[in-house]
């Protein structure tokens, strides 16, 4: 392998500016995403797609003429694509090629994209003709994988992918050696009563409520069916302490006791769960604050501010919650930044909304069950008849594939 340069960071953004006209956008996007995966699977690199604005790596298709690129393409065949070395980030494909996926016909977009990303990450051409980074396209391979020379090259630039070398995980210790013992699920909770374990504005703008072994979604028009937590996030226990999704990294972190789990969508990241050792165990709540792109962890009357992508100095934490969030109670149940940009805190049956100055707004606290869970307001006469585990709610659980599809969508 030959090394041409390197990025001074390992967490990169990318943007797909346009797609080939003769390949479906879904297939093309999947091919490009898989191309990134080849590299992130063997090196401690992460790639996050952005839909607008600047990105570290920008992928586009252009033909013989392009006002944005001095290296014009030559029509079908011959030159297929080119890319800039770090830290420039341009990756261009010849629009005139017959880009394909899953067939020996045409030119495989996934393999060529992976090759060009190799350049964008700092690799030059390899002299091994079977390597991805060989200059000549070797054709479609159904079971394509990186050549050892490709792996050696990228690891020479960024190191090997292993939990020990991940900067963002320094605050966490080694993988647990004792597997979690599966337990019988707790009774199905009633979303209209009792205290929440956690609330989270998750990927794709979905709001999740956690209680006991169950989770459900909340929308403006109602709430979704209850699912076992482990049915959605395989390997995750119930009775969580806190949950938080970061749009910055796409990571979902779940906290329980002295352990943390990380998922991307519904897939657990390798090496998790891990043990928390720089933040106190048994957290109360967690939220992502988009204004400074930090994760806040709460326990008792204190909070920690955590930068997921940088080494965080926790020596000055925990700090008093009241110093940053005015009017918020201690011993929270849950917290989240919601899609309206506001910060919400939950405790017991009540919740608090903060204004832009991070002060609790007038008129709060309000009732969680009525405003979030779409439950009828309870009169004193009805409260006593609605327990934490009711038969009526038990009857609403859905574990059919169609229901599962809707929540996984």
């Amino acid at each position, binding site marked *: 392998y030959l090394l041409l340069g390197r990025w001074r960071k390992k967490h990169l953004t990318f943007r797909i500016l346009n797609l080939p006209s003769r390949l479906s956008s879904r297939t093309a996007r999947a091919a490009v995403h898989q191309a990134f995966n080849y590299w992130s699977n063997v090196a401690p690199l992460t790639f996050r797609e952005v839909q607008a604005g600047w990105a570290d790596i920008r992928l586009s298709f252009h033909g013989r003429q392009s006002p944005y690129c001095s290296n014009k393409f030559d029509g079908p065949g011959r030159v*297929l694509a080119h890319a800039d070395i770090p830290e420039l980030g341009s990756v261009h494909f010849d629009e005139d090629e017959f880009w394909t996926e899953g067939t020996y016909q045409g030119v495989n977009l996934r393999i060529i994209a992976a090759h060009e990303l190799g350049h964008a990450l700092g690799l030059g051409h390899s002299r091994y003709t079977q390597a991805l980074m060989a200059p000549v396209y070797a054709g479609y391979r159904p079971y394509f994988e990186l050549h050892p020379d490709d792996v050696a090259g990228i690891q020479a630039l960024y190191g090997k992918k292993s939990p020990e070398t991940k900067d963002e995980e320094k605050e966490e210790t080694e993988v647990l050696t004792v597997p979690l013992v599966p337990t019988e699920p707790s009774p199905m909770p009633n979303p209209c009563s009792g205290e929440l374990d956690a609330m989270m504005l998750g990927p794709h703008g979905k709001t999740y409520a956690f209680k006991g072994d169950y989770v459900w979604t909340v929308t403006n028009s109602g709430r979704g069916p209850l699912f076992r937590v482990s049915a959605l996030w395989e390997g995750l226990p119930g009775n969580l302490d806190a949950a938080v999704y970061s749009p910055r990294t796409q990571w979902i972190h779940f906290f329980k006791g002295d352990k943390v789990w990380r998922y991307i969508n519904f897939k657990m990241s390798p090496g998790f769960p891990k043990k928390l050792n720089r933040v106190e165990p048994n957290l109360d709540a967690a939220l992502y604050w988009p204004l400074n792109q930090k994760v806040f962890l709460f326990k008792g009357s204190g909070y920690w501010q955590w930068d997921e992508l940088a080494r965080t100095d926790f020596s000055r934490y925990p700090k008093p919650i009241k110093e940053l969030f005015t009017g918020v109670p201690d011993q929270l149940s849950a917290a989240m930044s919601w899609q309206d940009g506001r910060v919400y805190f939950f405790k017991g049956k009540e919740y608090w909304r903060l204004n832009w100055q991070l002060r609790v707004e007038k008129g709060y606290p309000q009732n969680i069950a009525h405003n979030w869970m779409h439950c009828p307001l309870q009169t004193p006469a009805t409260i006593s008849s609605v327990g934490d585990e009711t038969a009526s709610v038990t009857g609403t659980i859905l574990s059919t594939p169609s229901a599962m599809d809707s929540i996984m969508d």
Partner: protein
Amino acid sequence: RALGPAEKKAAVDYLLQYGYLQKSLEGQDDFRPEDIMEALRVFQEASELPVSGQLDDATRAHMKQPRCGLEDPFNQKTLK
């Protein structure tokens, strides 16, 4: 079969475009035959072709294969 001037020029252009031949700073367009032979040898070796230094059919066919637009880093030193 004797190669025509267009085929020779296409090969030299390829060797130039992908870094096997370096244009002299003095701006002379013509390369010495021994320079072209050396560039062909490097290209053939890097492409796992029989190394002859000649513009044979296999070499010309390999030059027509679809490829990346970036230069190749190969020379006798890197190949060693």
